[in-house]
């Protein structure tokens, strides 16, 4: 059989392959981050990164399973996590990320002022990341309800 006779990969199979690649890439990235923290003699941070990363990967797998089992019931975030967003989901996440980008300028300025005022830089950095994550989640929810 020539190569032109090879049946085209179905969209579902391609989608599954992309999701598996994303999952494996995520696991490798988490492994690298954990290895770096261990090498820097930061076992607690390494443990936190491993736990957080594992939770994210688990949520991605759960979202994928739910979006396949009952696609009409899942949210934009679940479809994004599952790697099966439609054009409205992409529009919503694009809007949410643009909002996060705008807020990041404000938070960076506030964080800089806090550090200059004598607050612990690591705490400020951690809170900034947390605030950006909260901004992303809230904007996703609001835009999904409005759009």
């Amino acid at each position, binding site marked *: 059989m020539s190569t032109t006779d090879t049946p085209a990969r179905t969209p579902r199979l391609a989608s599954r392959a992309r999701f598996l690649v994303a999952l494996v890439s995520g696991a490798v990235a988490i492994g690298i981050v954990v290895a770096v923290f261990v090498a820097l003699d930061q076992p607690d941070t390494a443990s936190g990164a491993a736990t957080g990363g594992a939770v994210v990967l688990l949520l991605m797998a759960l979202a994928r399973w739910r979006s396949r089992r009952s*696609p*009409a019931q*899942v*949210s*934009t975030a679940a*479809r994004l996590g599952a790697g099966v967003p*439609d*054009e*409205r*989901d992409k*529009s919503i996440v694009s809007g949410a990320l643009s909002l996060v980008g705008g807020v990041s300028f404000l938070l960076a300025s506030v964080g800089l002022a806090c550090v200059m005022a004598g607050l612990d830089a690591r705490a400020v950095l951690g809170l900034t990341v947390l605030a950006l994550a909260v901004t992303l989640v809230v904007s996703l929810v609001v835009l*999904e309800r*409005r*759009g």
Partner: protein
Amino acid sequence: MRNDIRRLRDEAGLSQAALAEALGVSRQTVNSLETGRYDPSLPLAFAIAHHFGTTIEEIFHVDD
């Protein structure tokens, strides 16, 4: 932008989920389209028109 997707869907006896499946989008997207909260991309508008055997101009109307 107004549209006649809900009327066309009702006439075809389709649920939102069934139309969403046929168009390759989520049920929430169909709902947002019908309520006018989301304007589709040109490819999706063409897909909708093709699905109902009509034209984009027959389905979508600009608000005046």
